[in-house]
C-alpha cells in the first residue's frame, strides 16, 4: 500500500509503470486519474483544502478496507491539495490483482470512498467569484453499492 497526500504534481503514467513493476505475478492493474475540469465562465484555480493528519488516516483506512474486501496484491492512492489549474491531475488510484474483476471493483470502491469520506474540500475560483463545490447526492448514494 502506497498512500501520498501532497501539494506537488505527479506523473500518472510514471506512477502507473512503477506501481506495475513492483507487483509479483499480478495479471490486472486498474488506474483512475482525476483531472481538474474547466467550468463556466472559466476556472482560474481549483483550491483543494484538506485536514492534515486525518486525511492520511482516512485514506489508509479506506485502502485497508479495499485490500481486505478484494484479492488485491497492492493499491496506490495519490491525492493533491493546494491550488490547481484546469487540466492538472488532482489524484490517482491504482489497484493490482491476479484477476480483472477484483482490480476494477476495488478501484471503483476506492474512488467512491475517497470522494465522500476523505477530508478534502474543493473551491472553484472563477471570474464570478469563488464557490465551494457542493457534495452530490449521487456520490453519497454511490456508497450504498458496497
Amino acid at each position, binding site marked *: 500500500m502506497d498512500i501520498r497526500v501532497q501539494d506537488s504534481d505527479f506523473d500518472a503514467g510514471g506512477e502507473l509503470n512503477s506501481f506495475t513493476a513492483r507487483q509479483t505475478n499480478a495479471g490486472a492493474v486498474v488506474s483512475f486519474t482525476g483531472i481538474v475540469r474547466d467550468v463556466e465562465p472559466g476556472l482560474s484555480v481549483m483550491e483543494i483544502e484538506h485536514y492534515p493528519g486525518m486525511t492520511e488516516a482516512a485514506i489508509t483506512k479506506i485502502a485497508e478496507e479495499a485490500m481486505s474486501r478484494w484479492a488485491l496484491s497492492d493499491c496506490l492512492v495519490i491525492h493533491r491539495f493546494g491550488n490547481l489549474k484546469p487540466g492538472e491531475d488532482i489524484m490517482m488510484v491504482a489497484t493490482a490483482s491476479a484477476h480483472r474483476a477484483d482490480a476494477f471493483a476495488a478501484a471503483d470502491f476506492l474512488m467512491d470512498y475517497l470522494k465522500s469520506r476523505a477530508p478534502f474540500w474543493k473551491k472553484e475560483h472563477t471570474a464570478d467569484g469563488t464557490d465551494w463545490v457542493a*457534495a452530490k447526492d449521487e456520490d453519497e448514494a454511490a456508497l450504498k453499492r458496497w
Partner: protein
Amino acid sequence: MIDILYFAWVRERIGVPKEQIETKAATVMELVEELRSREERYAVAFSDLEALRVAIDQELSDFDAQLSGAREIAFFPPMTGG
C-alpha cells in the same frame, strides 16, 4: 481544553481555522449548542446540521457522540475529494 477545527465554508463563516476552548459539554450536540450561544457567526455556521459533518480525534463521528476524553473536534461540510 479541547481543540476545535473548522474547514472549508465552516472555517470561513467562523473566521478561524482552529481555537481552543474549555467546555463541560458531554456530547458533540452540547458543544454545538454552547458554540451557537456564543456569537452570531457560530449560530450561522451551525444553523443547518444536515449540511455539517463532525470528526472526533480525526475520525468521522456524529452529533450524538460522547466527547469523553476527546482532544480534537473538527466541523466541516460534506467532503468533496477525488
